[in-house]
């Protein structure tokens, strides 16, 4: 059994190490030593959630690549964030910036132009395949 966390040969502290991986990390070697974090089924499930049709070749390629990326992302577990509030956005620079404008409807008069760009316009509507079965 391979311990999936034992990447000591690549997990070195400091920025230079982060950069060093650009040049020195052999990802194939890394893969052989690690348990896969993400299966083919995971990729298919997520692709379905995102409404993406993927080819078999894409599923295979993404599985390996996402595994590399997720394994790398695991280094965040080294950071103690127990007392840290998540940063959801960059804080506004002055006090009145957080105020939102009044929610007032304004005519845009762009219906014709918008519909011209649609793949299947029908009068003032976008036409789509049947959603509700009889």
């Amino acid at each position: 059994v391979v311990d999936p966390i034992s990447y000591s040969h690549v997990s070195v502290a400091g920025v230079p190490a982060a950069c060093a991986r650009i040049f020195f990390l052999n990802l194939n070697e890394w893969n052989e030593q690690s348990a896969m974090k993400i299966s083919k089924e995971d990729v298919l499930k997520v692709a379905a959630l995102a409404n993406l049709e993927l080819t078999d070749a894409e599923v295979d390629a993404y599985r390996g690549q996402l595994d590399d990326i997720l394994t790398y992302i695991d280094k965040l577990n080294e950071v103690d964030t127990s007392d840290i509030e998540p940063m959801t956005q960059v804080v506004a620079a002055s006090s009145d910036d957080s105020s939102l404008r009044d929610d007032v409807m304004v005519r845009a008069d762009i219906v014709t132009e918008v519909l011209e760009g649609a793949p299947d316009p029908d009068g003032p509507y976008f036409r789509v395949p049947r959603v509700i079965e009889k």
Partner: protein
Amino acid sequence: VSAATAWTIPEVRAALGSRKISARELVNEFYARIDRLNPELNVYLALSPERAYAQADRIDAAIAAGDALPSLAGVPLAVKDVISTHRIPTTCGSRILEGYKPPYDATAVTRLEHAGAVILGKTNCDEFAMGSSNENSAYGPVRNPVATNHVPGGSSGGSAAAVAATLAVVSLGTDTGGSIRQPGSFCGVPALNPSYGRVSRYGLIAYASSLDRIGPFAHTVRDAASVMSVIAGRDPRDATSSSLPVPDYAAGLDQPLHGMRIGIPDDYFGEGIDAEVRQKIEAGIRLLEKLGCRRVSIRMPNTEYAVAAYYIIATAEASSNLARYDGVRYGPRVPGATLIEMYRKTRGQGFGPEVKRRIVLGTYVLSAGYYDAYYLKGQKVRALIARDFREAFEKADFIVTPVAPVPAFRLGERMASPLQMYLADIYTVTGSLAGVPGISVPSGKTAAGLPVGLQIYGPAFGEDRVLHLAHAFEQAGGADL
């Protein structure tokens, strides 16, 4: 590609004012050059001659009437293809928006045109601004004008190359994790990523909304400053835009420099950085010292987690933002028997490999059971990186780093491993996460003639000072180190 004599904004102004050239003739000159060079460089995806000549004629009429000219009168401008332009094709470098013509202009575009700028066309970029080499464009990569078998950087590669090849006087790019600064470094032109909230994002087609910013490329720091004065400022259409007053950035450039402490993060120059890049950045730091800057040592202890946090947050936001491309309202549709099947086929065939990879990753990190472990963790680490910057700016007025650990690489050289491509964003994603402004300013060239960019970070809304120091660096010969 040999650069023609580069027009700067003051030169355009002087030539128009003295009637050496008309705005229309200037547009002709640029389009002739684009006709000649674009087939090789692939910088422009669409040209907008109708709009450009109409604007040029307005400027020429104003000159003939003796009217006062706005600050960017007649200045030829290129706009990255992720920024909306009314009735000018805007594809984001993607097949899924092929043929899309926005029904409105981005605020930055409106403001630039109002200031007299002439929009020549739309520049190539990595699809939906996702990439570091411009090789993810569905319309083929841009070639670096400095060395045409090399990438121009990404994602705003077309906007950087447009200026570097003198196919525009100034251009707009966008930066989410380094997409202005890194191509600025690779193509050897000044490139500013302003503070988050300084420039309205209205009309910028979203990649990662908490990170996306619009900023300029130019031949000189002064020109970049002139563009900033026009595009910065509160916009009621972007609730995250700041109402802090906008200084006249160009006017402040010639003030004397004093009391400038430059923070150099410990450990930023170790293993992993290209030896020549390191040498040029160290020479750049010495030049800053000659200009009177005092070097202070700072610590940015969470930097090594920045790439991981960035790729969680950016892909999560992207997976949400890109949900709107579904074959209903714009772009081509791939038919399907059911609505869901139509969505899946349209998206599967409309998006390229890097975009799909990021949507899958972003959807994964947001999915049930993983949200806390990835997305929430990423946001907490983001808070720590922002804290690193705040603490560093207590000891230093600026933070100076490389822009990228390498100079421009060859086309195709780094496409095999997405992770390795991501890791090279280390010096730029930190500032993206923190929301602070950063400029890439040319700091010499490698022996092979490839430009190296020095990055100057300032505190949030300190772009006036960042531009000031970058200008002094440029005037002192930074590009020729």
